[in-house]
């Protein structure tokens, strides 16, 4: 990518597409942060604000989709340019999902309350901060076209999955011991799952960055995912 296009406006179109992705990524990360903040402080106003701002993320996805379609139709991109445009479409779709998941997580601020089980929220928030860091990292990797950095983030998703598995087990245990925690516990499960899904979409973006630069998927297989589908917690025996 050392050389510039002969046609200036083509170069500018692709650069503009890249800037839109970076903007969208930063907004999506801010949305996650807002959601975690709202959940941590049970700040329903902030939660509503986060939900409202999701429209911005959606609008960016549409804008990127249109710009990408236009580039395909008018420029007929080849090789790295083609991967650039296809990657923009894929990344914006992952970011749009991240926005939705942040919005959905934020909404639970209305329902968590301050019961005993709510003390797990800070742990979920720390997991969320890790995910947000990954997201910001992967957006930086995208901007720098740095597949190594993207891969590092990609491998980091395993840590997120581990933390989610821990939170899941703990919530199950609480709920089994005391049915009064089931209400809040279920809400927290949704929040934790949403955050974990954001981590998955972030890992998708990391794979796309690798593909964008190298023209192929990451050389190794994806780090092991969350395994809560197989998790069984036995009820306490009395």
């Amino acid at each position, binding site marked *: 990518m*050392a*050389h*510039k*296009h*002969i*046609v200036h406006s*083509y170069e500018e179109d692709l650069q503009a597409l890249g800037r839109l992705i970076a903007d969208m990524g930063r907004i999506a990360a801010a949305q996650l942060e807002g959601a975690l903040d709202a959940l941590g402080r049970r700040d329903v106003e902030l939660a509503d604000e986060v939900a409202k701002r999701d429209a911005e993320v959606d609008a960016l996805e549409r804008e990127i989709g249109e710009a990408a379609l236009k580039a395909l139709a008018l420029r*007929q*991109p*080849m*090789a*790295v*340019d*083609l*991967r650039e445009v296809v990657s923009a479409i894929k990344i914006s779709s992952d970011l749009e999902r991240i926005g939705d998941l942040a919005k959905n997580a934020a909404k639970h601020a209305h329902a968590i309350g301050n019961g005993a089980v709510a003390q797990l929220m800070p742990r979920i928030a720390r997991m969320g901060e890790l995910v947000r860091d990954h997201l910001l990292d992967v957006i930086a990797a995208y901007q720098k076209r740095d597949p190594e950095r993207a891969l590092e983030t990609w491998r980091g998703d395993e840590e997120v999955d581990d933390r989610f598995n821990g939170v899941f087990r703990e919530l199950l245990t609480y709920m089994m011991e005391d049915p009064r925690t089931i209400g809040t516990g279920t809400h927290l499960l949704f929040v934790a799952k949403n955050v974990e899904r954001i981590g998955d979409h972030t890992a998708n973006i990391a794979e796309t960055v690798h593909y964008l630069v*190298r*023209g*192929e998927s990451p050389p190794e297989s994806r780090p092991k995912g969350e395994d809560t589908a197989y998790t069984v917690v036995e009820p306490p025996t009395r």
Partner: protein
Amino acid sequence: MALASTLPKIVARDVDCFYGDKQALFCVNLDISEKQVTALIGPSGCGKSTFLRCLNRMNDVIDGCRVTGKLELDAEDIYGPDVDVVKLRARVGMVFQKPNPFPKSIYENVAYGPRIHGLVSNRGELDELVEWSLEKAGLLGEVKDRLQEPGTGLSGGQQQRLCIARAIAVSPEVILMDEPCSALDPIATAKIEELTDELRENFTNVIVTHNMQQAARVSQRTAFFHLGILVEEGETGKIFTNPGNERTQDYITGRFG
């Protein structure tokens, strides 16, 4: 049979080509697969047409043109001392950038080659062969009622398909096409491209094109030339999504190289 189809139809090894003192090709090594379309791409003056013209010795008529290295068609030396160039060109036909029908009837344009090569023994066979060739070239439907009219009266796209019919009438094994669509409109271009794909059943095809999308559409293999050097050759899908060489990438994406 299976073994034969895995052998390259044309093999080029360490091919250099000079026009007087000027070297136009540098040590080109390329295998051209049988019954596939190979696209040669590269900027003007890169040597792609020179290489194409080496394959049926069209360069012989150019004063001071000298070709060294090994060029083989079915493991036979194309530049061997015993090679009959007229027979070679019947085996390796050519279609040019500008359609160049003879100033004769549509029928005579196609009949000329089979007649001089003695491929037919009577008028009936010749009629059949002319019809078959025009049909293969996707032109018969448009001209069957006016075979005696001059070939030069056809539209550009029809003339080019007439030239393709003329080329395939002598049952070549290889067809070389040098920018066959650059003077044609998009519909005529699409017809030639469709034809290229169909001809793959019977012929090995090598096409020089400046149109990257065309190379991507019609070929299975693509070779990129730059400054007389074969920079990269590979599967077309790979060359246009993830080329291995930065110069290839710069060229196909429209960057300064």
